[in-house]
């Protein structure tokens, strides 16, 4: 399959100018077709997101309107003689077009009045009139959701943020530390321990969640209380969720280790000659060189914990401790909010992540790529 570097160009020119032109055309054609397909797909991908924004800004009665509209709009209404009337754009018989308020709609003879001068009455068939809609963005939906006193979104957001940040710090620190051992140091038993890491990757959370729950809500508090005579409880606290993050995650350790392996050993040796110990080598030489994988790892971890649902669902139940994910479902279950409010709430939940994604999207992609290709 090896290609002689001389031949490709020659081979192309052998085919003659006409064919060459045709080929160029074909290439252009397929490239534009590809772009069109991708663009159409991108629109399809974006529609749900746009739909979410649109629904969040609508009035309750407009969310359910058929046909669905992307622009939050509502029928223009005007008060004439103390009555609320819908506004229509009416084509009058004399060819004029006027914005009028409908008093009575009738297929043949609808009655309209001029809102500026209610004595002026016009008649026209209903087909000649089109209802007027105004674009109204109901930003207050967000305020309504946000200020719901019994489901504190501000607290949910704060909890999720703290959880994500603590988890990122814990995982990045512990995994980059542990990975150094596996990538750089030699010791008996290392291979078998590394196999354990790989084996842990296979264990579904379903297996661990029950015994972990029992351990954190019964065994550990019982042990501590028995030893110290205290009365601590770990159920309905963040401890069971945050503490394990400081002990590394098999997946991320594997990821960082793969990256460390690609850094030449010469750096370690140079550091050693300069009198640096392993700790300093890790902190001052290896860590700064691993910035891309550390950022990618941080982003992956942040994203995972921001969306985490099952963990908090199992451990937490008091309202002021819930993260956004569980808080949102609780809000939905207790208040049965109308769709526009639920979408506003959902947007509050995902917007911070979307904003971070657009700023750091390079690192998000990198994180996935590193995890996929290197793994």
């Amino acid at each position, binding site marked *: 399959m*090896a*290609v002689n570097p001389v*031949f*490709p160009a020659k*081979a192309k020119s052998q085919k003659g100018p006409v064919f060459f032109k045709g080929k160029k055309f074909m290439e252009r054609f*397929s*490239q534009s077709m*590809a772009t069109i397909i*991708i*663009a159409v797909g*991108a629109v399809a*991908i*974006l*529609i*749900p997101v746009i*739909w979410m924004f649109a*629904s969040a800004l609508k009035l309750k009665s407009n969310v359910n*309107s058929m046909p*669905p509209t992307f622009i939050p709009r509502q029928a223009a209404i005007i008060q004439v003689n103390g009555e609320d009337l819908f506004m229509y754009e009416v084509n009058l018989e004399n060819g004029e077009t006027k914005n009028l308020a409908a008093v009575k709609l009738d297929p043949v003879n609808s009655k309209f009045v001029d809102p500026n001068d209610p004595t002026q009455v016009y008649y026209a068939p209903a087909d000649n009139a089109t209802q007027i809609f105004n674009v109204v963005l109901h930003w207050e939906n967000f305020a309504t959701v946000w200020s719901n006193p019994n489901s504190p979104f501000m607290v949910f957001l704060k909890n999720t943020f703290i959880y994500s940040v603590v988890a990122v710090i814990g995982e990045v620190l512990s995994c980059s*530390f*542990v990975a150094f051992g596996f990538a750089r*140091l*030699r*010791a008996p038993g*290392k*291979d078998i321990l590394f196999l354990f890491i*790989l084996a842990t990757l*296979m264990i*579904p959370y*379903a*297996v*661990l*969640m*029950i*015994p*972990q729950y029992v*351990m954190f809500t019964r065994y550990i508090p019982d042990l501590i209380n028995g030893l110290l005579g205290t009365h601590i409880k770990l159920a309905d606290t963040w401890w069971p969720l945050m503490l394990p993050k*400081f*002990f*590394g995650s098999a997946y991320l350790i594997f990821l960082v280790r793969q990256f460390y392996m690609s850094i030449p050993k010469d750096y370690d040796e140079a550091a050693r000659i300069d009198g640096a110990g*392993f700790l300093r080598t890790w902190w001052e030489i290896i860590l700064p060189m691993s910035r891309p994988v550390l950022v990618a790892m941080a982003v992956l971890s942040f*994203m995972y914990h*921001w*969306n985490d*649902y*099952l963990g908090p669902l199992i451990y937490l139940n008091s309202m002021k401790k819930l993260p956004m994910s569980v808080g*949102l*479902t609780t809000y939905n*279950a207790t208040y049965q909010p109308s769709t526009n409010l639920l*979408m506003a709430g*959902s*947007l509050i939940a995902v917007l911070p*992540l*979307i904003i971070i994604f*657009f700023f750091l999207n390079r690192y*998000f*992609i990198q994180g996935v790529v590193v995890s*996929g*290709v290197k*793994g």
Partner: protein
Amino acid sequence: MASIAGIIPKGKLARQEAGWFYIFISPWLIGFLAFTLFPILASVVYSFTTYNVTEMKYVGLDNFKELFNDKLFYWALWITFKYTIVAVPLNIVLALLVAVILNQRVPFLSFWRTIYYLPSVISGVAVAFLWRLILNPSIGILSYLLTKVGIESPRWFWSETWVIPAYWVMGIWGIGAPMVIYLAGLQGVPTALYEAAEIDGASSWRKFLNITIPMISPVLLFNFITGLIGALQTFTTVYVISNGDGGPNYASLLYVLYLFKVAFRWNRFGYASAMAWVLFLIIVALTYLFLRASRSVVYYEEPSATGI
């Protein structure tokens, strides 16, 4: 790893290095013993008992016997199978398709990539609510579009027949993550191979089949295996959309959802632990099977660093 395996140096320096190794890995080692190994052992014990938070009685294999007579267990397996068998292939094939098209020197590659990846960022509860709205048979946009082109919209999440297909459709939205991985793989395929094939007069289809697919087959396998393991453990979306019931009439009772109900609604920790081990065995068996079967198909340029 291969270069240092077996060459464990002796002497004071080596002992010192080994000591540091254990210091470095100590966080993981402690965490592994406390938060993984101990729970695993506990879970094995629970699976042979009637543990329900308050009392624990050893019952031997009764949990497993009950499990194999539990109609809902088979039902949950069947639903999970029904979901996985379509969702995973659909997802990885569509993702590959998009990645291959994107790789045709489409302008603004990183822009498109960002858009396709966006849904994967916001997975979770909010997305579940969003899709429940989109697939709402009376006010949802997809239902409206279907009606518009003359197809009567199914009742999706509200229909026993259509609830799993609804999750397939929803899953398509998440093709961004595997797609990004494919793209990275595709960009690593040497262009020389394509040029050589062009000289031989190969068509685009032949190039795709005989160069692209073999060259990215490890990535394909990776996406397939991770997709499979993920699909078998799907929980959040179904839990949120069906309000934790797996409805309508158990039609979306995925395995982990059933397990969750057994454990945290009915407090049957022993029985749920037995269920969890069955899931573990299924995952291990399937992974082994597919890795084994892929051996003759997947092309590795060089042995990977870890030897797996």
